[in-house]
């Protein structure tokens, strides 16, 4: 029950549940950079939201199956082919031994999730199967996939042929507006109001650790002398060179640059789809409003994804 990697793409990793509860040892969360898309793909093959699946980056992946199973793809807009015939995202795709699946280059967004009925087998470290490449943890030998790798499938589950209903296909865009709260050092920005409602640009310096944001000239009053402090995915740092740095799922656990904002939990899941050149506006929310809107978002998504409160 294996899947062979014919083309590995820019960075393809196995991701599962985030590695929660070990930041005090310097161990980042990891997990899917777009957990909602991974949950949607898993849902279509009968899996729970964080069953280990494949995350691709920009250029996709090509896989050859040595087993009959079912797969599903969700995430970035990308052309996908099964044995040369187009297959859609957001649909259960039965595959047979010998079939070749191509996930094409992302046209909008960055990452696709390929879920396999029953899930992929993966290494576990501190209770999580997610790959963290810098330390070689989890996933497939702690690294990105390479041509020729043989991935092991867990026992397949019975699954119906499904499609994600229209209202649950999260739209992938080139323009993003994400709800954001103030953070510990927001008041140290020379002009805190400048953070919000302006067009920032996603820079090329963008990966699973974080995303540099251009389009402003952000400086703080007292840059020197900040004690190293805990940071988390979603925190926006102001390093002092004018840019901002939005931390993502593999982000370090502490840092010495002012923390000037934090994406609200409910709008963290698109982090993995912010593509160099996309525009981003940070929309200010109070902490109370961000919590209320999270409850509303959970209530909406629960209808299709019962475990949504563990996804976003």
């Amino acid at each position, binding site marked *: 029950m294996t899947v062979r990697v014919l083309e590995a793409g820019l960075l393809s990793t196995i991701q599962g549940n985030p590695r929660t*509860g070990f930041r*005090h040892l*310097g161990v*980042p969360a990891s997990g899917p950079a777009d957990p909602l898309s991974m949950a949607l793909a898993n849902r279509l093959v009968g899996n729970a939201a964080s069953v280990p699946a494949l995350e691709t980056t920009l250029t996709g992946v090509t896989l050859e199956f040595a087993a009959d199973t079912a797969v599903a793809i969700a995430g970035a807009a990308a052309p996908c082919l099964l044995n040369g015939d187009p297959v859609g995202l957001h649909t259960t795709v039965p595959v047979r031994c010998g079939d070749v699946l191509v996930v094409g280059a992302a046209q909008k967004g960055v990452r696709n999730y390929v879920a396999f009925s029953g899930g992929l087998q993966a290494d576990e470290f501190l209770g999580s199967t997610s790959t963290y490449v810098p330390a070689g943890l989890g996933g497939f030998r702690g690294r990105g996939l390479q041509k020729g790798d043989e991935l092991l499938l867990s026992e397949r589950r019975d699954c119906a042929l499904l499609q994600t209903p229209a209202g649950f296909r999260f739209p992938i865009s080139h323009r993003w507006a994400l709800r954001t709260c103030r953070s*510990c050092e927001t008041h140290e920005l020379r002009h805190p109001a400048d953070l919000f409602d302006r067009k920032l640009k996603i820079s090329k310096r963008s990966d699973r650790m974080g995303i540099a944001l251009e389009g402003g000239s952000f400086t703080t009053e007292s840059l020197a002398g900040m004690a190293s402090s805990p940071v988390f995915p979603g*925190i926006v740092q102001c390093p002092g060179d004018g840019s901002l740095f939005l931390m993502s799922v593999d982000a*370090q656990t502490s840092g010495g640059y002012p923390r000037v904002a934090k994406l609200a939990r409910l709008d963290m899941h698109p982090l993995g789809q912010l593509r160099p050149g996309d525009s981003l506006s940070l929309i200010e929310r109070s902490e109370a409003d961000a919590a209320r809107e999270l409850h509303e978002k959970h209530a909406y998504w629960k209808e299709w994804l019962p475990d949504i409160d563990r996804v976003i």
Partner: protein
Amino acid sequence: MGLRFVPSAGDDLISIATAGPREAQSLAKQLRNHGEWLEVVAGIASVVVRYDIAVMNRDTAQKQIRESAEERSSGAVSVLPTVEIPVVYGGQAGADLGWVCARLQLTEEEFIALHTASEYEVDMLGFTPGFAYIGPAKERLSVPRLTKPRVRVAAGSVGIAEGRTGLYALPGPGGWPVIGQTSLRLFDAASSEPFVLQPGMKLRFVDVGRS
């Protein structure tokens, strides 16, 4: 016990200011032992708690943090060994040593003598797996972080910023000027004890020559 809550840390974060790293470590340990938190992370002068806003509002979380902080702790203090960290200073191993010395108006030899002279303590782990923040901060060796962080710093790099020394266990981005490199492996995922250093541990730097 009066806890100093920072007014706003983020929708699901609560930050508590502390006097220093020891207070931060002890409060963080206390909170990890009592209460249902997603993460409890100590900084040099703060503790940040990430909690599940889907099940708990801010007032409840703050109340539980206060209650947790007042729980009786066991009082057991573990005695940790002193660890020697071999360091190759300067040259390719420490590309920023020249810049650091120029700023501090020290020769490289003077810097190394000062850096290896005293006993240090691990203030916190963080950044990446096994990265250690080493104190106490030394006023005389205080330089700022790089304004543009490096995209890649080698594993074992020894950095210095704000008077503290930082040990990079893994290759990755970093904002601390690099003064040298150690051959000691600080993080080993395959080991039953993956983390070589832990907060409170005493250590010394040993000059093992130039690159």
